[in-house]
């Protein structure tokens, strides 16, 4: 179905493009929010992606590749959004709406907070690698193909991202900061 809609949209059919946008929108916001860690910025990235996709759609050679192509555009839009906001280096606030009920839950929140801080320290391209690997379940080869980067680059970005996350976890295991703290 996508292929027909894509071909119609390539010919300028806005209604067909609207159906595509609604079909793929949830997946796009899920990816963008996980990379950017901010719903508002993720929505901006998705909106930007849809507009760019509309503009560039006639240049898409293979309509069956629409989904992968759209995700590639989204990742680039997320990079641009991240550059604008510089969100990856600072200002972590992950506080529960209500206080923890007990020690186990408090530990879980602390662990989540340290993961959040570690993740936000990563550059956007490494964040994207983690999202595509651990959320979408893709292999480095699949990610490389989808993002249009060499496999070696995908592997190295994933390696550095894993190393950084491991270091973040182990550093915080040694000196767990207060949840809701701010990093410089």
């Amino acid at each position, binding site marked *: 179905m996508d292929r027909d809609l894509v071909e119609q949209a390539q010919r300028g059919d806005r209604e067909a493009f609207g159906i595509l946008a609604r079909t793929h929108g*949830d997946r796009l916001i*899920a990816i963008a*929010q996980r990379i950017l860690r901010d719903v508002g910025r993720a929505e901006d990235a998705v909106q930007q992606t849809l*507009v760019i996709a509309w503009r*560039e759609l006639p240049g898409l050679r293979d309509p069956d590749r629409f989904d992968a192509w759209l995700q590639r555009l989204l990742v680039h839009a997320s990079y641009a959004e991240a550059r604008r906001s510089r969100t990856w280096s600072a200002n972590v606030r992950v506080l529960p709406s209500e206080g923890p009920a007990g020690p186990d839950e408090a530990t879980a929140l602390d662990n989540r907070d340290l993961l959040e801080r570690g993740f936000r320290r990563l550059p956007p391209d490494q964040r994207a690698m983690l999202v595509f690997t651990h959320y979408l379940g893709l292999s480095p080869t699949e990610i490389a193909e989808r993002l249009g980067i060499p496999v*070696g680059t995908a592997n190295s970005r994933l390696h550095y991202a894993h190393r950084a996350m491991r270091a973040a976890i182990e550093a915080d295991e040694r000196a767990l900061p207060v949840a809701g703290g701010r990093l410089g």
Partner: protein
Amino acid sequence: MTTQRELDRILDGFLADGTNELADRVIQAALADIDHTPQRRHLRAPRRLFMTTMQTRLAVAAVIGVLAIGGGFYLLQRNGPQTGVPVASPSAVPTLGASPIGRATPPAGSPGPTALVGPMGVGRQIQTSTRLNDGRVLIAGGYALGDGSLASAVLYDPVTNTFSPTGPMAGARGYHTATLLKDGRVLVVGGGTANWSATLPPEGAFTFLASAEIYDPATGTFTPTGPMATPREVHTATLLEDGRVLIVGGMTTQSESVASAELFDPATGTFSTTGTMKNARAFHTATRLGDGRVLIVGGSPAAWNNSSTLDSAEIYDPATGTFSTTGSLSFGLTFHAATLLKDGRVLITGGNNGYQGNLASTEIYDPISGTFTAGKTMVNGRVYQTTTLLDDGRVLITGGGDDYTNRRFLSSAELYDPATGTFVATGSLATARTYHAATLLTDGRVLVTGGYGADAPVAAAEIYDPTTGTFSPAG
């Protein structure tokens, strides 16, 4: 120590949480935006056209034919038959006498309506422009109206301010390279042979050229040499300090970018393979650095794909014959330009980053640190612009694409001043153009030739004078 399995489990759980539903207002906002966003319909993309169905290609060919014949008929009616130099086929050599082009009298009963003549003869885009040791400029090949490739070549003489025919090449070609050798001859390499207006190649039969030719200014003739091991177009060719020529990357059959490189030895007239790049790429830039190494930047890693660009750069070392990675661009770039500055750094301007087609952004490569840093932005976003190092160290940037959807190309030009790192507007071209060429003349002026204008390849040329900051007609 956290094991990889534990880390995977932790990250799987961490990234499972998050937003999974897009608010409808975002889609509504996007759809409202696209009401004001025209779709980008690319000016010329023969490789993508090549991948379409035969039915579509035949339809495109029919439209081109109708437009060419209809437009030519209209122009003949308007201008009268005496104004045109006939061009029987875009790939044919213009039937010109020894007189300067544009002043030739067309033979009686000449076939083929066309107004695609001017000082340069036939209008051409994606041609090469090479300054010879005697100061003349060799303009060779390229594509005419309807993407017909050209075998013809012309010489511009700045002393007489005239163009005259030379050659022709043995093979029609566009997206090729032309490199001035140390002995004063010119090496022409590869390119595409598409002649879409005449006969469409059957599916899968499109080929790029492995052939090469050498132009001898003393005789005005092209002689076959080589060939290369790999057919390619949109590659780069760089003269090395020892006189050999490095051919890098490009696109080959089925529109795949290649990582291979070859060396041309003018002493033997042969190509030999050399190191392979880390990345396959086409539409990249290659710049010989002050120490003799060659900087390769960006490009397209695969087939024609608007959102596929490389942010990586590599260095070729002629001493070892190998490529090694160096710093990366801030983001992937293709269709950009690179210029060696007098202080040894390299200015990267404009281009396409995969989803924005006419960037104003710039970067500077420092060969000492091996890193790129962001530069100031140009006055205009551009793609397929020309950049020319002037004698005073500034860089002239001309034309290029601005809005391909609406076929809005730039007549504007700007100057980069390395002392301040800033771009300022300078005089404008008389003809807006993209896919053109610019060459520094021996007297410090810049010759701008051909390209694609409002609706056809341009046969007019202009000269930029840095002392006045203005363009004037050439030829």
